[in-house]
């Protein structure tokens, strides 16, 4: 444990080095770029596996190892950074490196025809490095730095095809919207540093997530009627809202689909957007801190409500979309809501389990969608597809597994277990039953829109020329699909109620197998309820879409326009911004320009005076002096005419005068 944490910095560093080298490569070195990125990722994956096995062999608090070091000093205090390996970071490490590795390999096929292949892998490696740094960070400061770096990588990759105006706009939108949340995050960090005096998570009893600091923060008095720890938690949660696409800052995530599909799979489905969830899970000791034992803390209540709202909101928007990637994007928004809700109602294990399962099946779905888009000559509209199950069988099977997982089809698929854990926890939430009901509605909608999508894309008759000429993708793309499909199925079995290994692993306990736990707390009845609902939704979807009808009942205007959220923002935030811009423009033109002009006139006048003095006094004086000198020189040189006999005559004359004077003196 202590051994591995000393060398774990290699995991983020290797991809960073690969990114640096790739940035310097000429464009034509495609093999080098891909080889470097994939090689460094494979190295990080192996290192992550080593870290993971190290945590497996330790139980309880022994399963946490930290490595802190001083970054710089200012005054008497110093800023410390550090790495931490505990079950939470180890499991994220393995998931992120594994999915990244598969997506990197897949990208070799998907981006094969792109001229900026090397740049793509440079950005991907940069992203992976920042993401791994974020997971391993033992300091909120290091976490924040990596958090901004993944944001930057996301911006670069959404705008990868920057010549397309929509992509450039989407990149800007993503960057600015998440920055809004990060403002709160930064304020939270500052407040935490001011009140706790450290940003290290775990530091042998002195870290900000350890009991002493949390007790201090809880009892430090109130700020606006809330405990200090709650204020900090809520501010930090702002960052998570932005990054994880929660309502109301979800608007950037669907637009981010303008980026290449592997990017959508890796960054905007599996890893980066889950960083917000990971942040909440990491800060859980602080988030859950409350003075009243037995009730959820105020911060967690906010997390739950935001999550539940987002879950339904995203799912209902996904129903009416026609772009294959946008459906998945709204689905991601909705699933991230589930994760937040899981964290709020059930704790770290419930939320993280859904994060893990979702990473696998959503990456699978996105890569499958990429395969479909690749096969159909860049067509993304599901109304133009259909009947692809015959031409793309491997993609179809993999996609179907992803769809069944996401919908929560019982027993075999991971989504069922993770989603049921969330619903079960929500059922027993002491505050309100509304999140539970919202979760059920979301589950029904999820099953419905996924059935709609799969029916329109893979079943029925082909509806366009591009879909008719579709072909199966090369092995470099289908093998990652198969691996992810296998994971989507298998990941579920580590967190069933009978064998809650994942739960125990995060808590540092030993898992036991006990079938009787199914019957506890109405577990079984809830499963039957959700199974029934999902089956109904899938049946309804299949009945509506498997045979093509003239009109699509999901084309509800309110949903197609995304609840007019974008229009609402355009009318409020953007309008306000425009007003400010106009105001400052007016100020610029009238006030500041006037002041500037007056100043300029003053300076010009001074310059004129200066120039006059220069011309008249200094230049004139020198001119006169030199003229005089020259005239004097001319006069003096008149005598020297080169006539040697004239000189002689003068000499004689002078001698005669002197002689005369001497004679006159003597006599």
């Amino acid at each position, binding site marked *: 444990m202590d051994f591995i944490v000393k060398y774990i910095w290699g995991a983020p560093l290797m991809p960073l080095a690969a990114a640096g080298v790739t940035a310097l490569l000429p464009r034509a070195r495609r093999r080098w770029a891909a080889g470097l990125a994939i090689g460094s990722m494979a190295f990080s994956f192996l290192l992550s596996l080593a870290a993971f096995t190290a945590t497996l062999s330790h139980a309880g608090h022994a399963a946490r190892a930290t490595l802190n070091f001083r970054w710089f000093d200012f005054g008497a205090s110093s800023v410390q950074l550090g790495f931490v390996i505990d079950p939470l970071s180890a499991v994220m490490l393995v998931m992120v490196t594994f999915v990244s590795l598969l997506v990197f390999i897949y990208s070799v096929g998907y981006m094969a025809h792109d001229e900026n292949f090397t740049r793509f892998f440079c950005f991907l490696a940069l992203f992976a490095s920042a993401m791994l740094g974020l997971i391993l960070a033992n300091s909120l400061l290091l976490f924040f730095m990596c958090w901004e770096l993944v944001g930057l990588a996301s911006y670069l990759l959404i705008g990868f095809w920057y010549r397309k105006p929509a992509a450039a706009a989407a990149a800007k939108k993503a960057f600015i919207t998440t920055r809004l949340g990060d403002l709160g995050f930064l304020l939270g960090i500052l407040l935490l540093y001011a009140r706790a005096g450290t940003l290290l998570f775990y530091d042998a009893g002195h870290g900000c997530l350890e009991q002493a600091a949390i007790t201090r923060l809880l009892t430090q008095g109130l700020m606006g009627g809330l405990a200090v720890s709650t204020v900090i938690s809520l501010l930090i949660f702002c960052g998570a809202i932005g990054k994880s696409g929660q309502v109301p800052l979800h608007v950037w995530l669907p637009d981010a689909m303008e980026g290449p599909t592997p990017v959508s799979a890796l960054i905007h489905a599996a890893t980066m957007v889950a960083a917000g969830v990971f942040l909440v899970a990491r800060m859980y000791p602080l988030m859950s801190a409350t003075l009243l034992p037995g009730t959820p803390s105020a911060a967690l209540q906010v997390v739950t409500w935001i999550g539940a709202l987002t879950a339904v909101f995203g799912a209902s928007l996904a129903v009416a979309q026609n772009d294959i990637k946008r459906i998945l994007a709204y689905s991601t928004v909705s699933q991230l809501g589930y994760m937040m809700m899981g964290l709020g109602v059930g704790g770290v294990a419930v939320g993280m389990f859904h994060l893990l399962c979702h990473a696998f099946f959503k990456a699978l779905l996105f890569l499958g969608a990429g395969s479909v888009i690749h096969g159909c000559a860049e067509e993304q509209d599901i109304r133009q597809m259909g009947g692809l199950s015959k031409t793309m069988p491997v993609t179809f099977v993999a996609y179907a597994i992803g769809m069944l997982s996401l919908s929560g089809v019982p027993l075999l698929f991971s989504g069922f277990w993770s989603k049921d854990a969330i619903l079960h926890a929500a059922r027993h939430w002491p505050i309100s039953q509304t999140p539970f009901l919202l979760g059920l509605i979301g589950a029904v909608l999820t099953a419905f829109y996924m059935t709609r999508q799969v029916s329109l894309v893979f079943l029925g008759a082909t509806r366009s020329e591009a879909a008719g000429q579709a072909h199966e993708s090369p092995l470099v793309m289908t093998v990652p699909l198969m691996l992810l499909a296998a994971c989507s199925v298998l990941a579920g079995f580590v967190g069933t109620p009978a064998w809650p290994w994942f739960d125990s692993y995060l808590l540092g306990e030993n898992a036991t197998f006990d079938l009787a736990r199914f019957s506890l707390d109405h577990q079984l009845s809830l499963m039957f309820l959700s199974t029934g609902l999902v089956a109904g939704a899938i049946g309804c979807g299949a009945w509506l879409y498997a045979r093509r009808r003239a009109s699509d009942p999901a084309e509800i205007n309110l949903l197609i326009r995304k609840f007019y959220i974008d229009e609402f923002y355009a009318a409020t935030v953007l309008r306000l911004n425009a007003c400010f811009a106009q105001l400052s423009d007016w100020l610029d033109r009238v006030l500041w320009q006037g002041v500037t002009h007056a100043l300029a006139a003053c300076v010009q006048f001074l310059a004129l005076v200066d120039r006059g003095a220069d011309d008249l006094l200094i230049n004139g004086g020198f001119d006169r002096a030199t003229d005089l000198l020259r005239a004097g020189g001319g006069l*003096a*040189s*008149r*005598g*020297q*005419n*080169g*006539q*040697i*006999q004239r000189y*002689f*005559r003068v000499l*004689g004359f002078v001698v005669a005068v002197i002689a005369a004077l001497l004679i006159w003196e003597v006599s």
Partner: protein
Amino acid sequence: MNAPLAQYLIFSALLFTVGFAGALVRRNAILALVGIEIMLNAANLNFIAFWRFGPHPEALTGVMFVIFSIAVAAAEAAVGLALVIAIYRHRRTAQAPQFNSLRG
């Protein structure tokens, strides 16, 4: 033989005046040099005269002075003639008024 000192001095003054006039008015540089040599010899004659009528005529100091003076005059004449010849080679003339390249 028994002429008084004044006669020698008058003769020397005349000789000096003749030399000075020659040096001033001759346009030919060589003849101007000849005038200068005459002025020098007038001064030499003064040396001899003052020595001969001085308090120690047996000491031969005047003759010594004059011999030195003649040697120096010979060297000076050689330099002067060499300058004139050098200028003549460039200018193809020995007329002193045309030697005016040092005019200011």
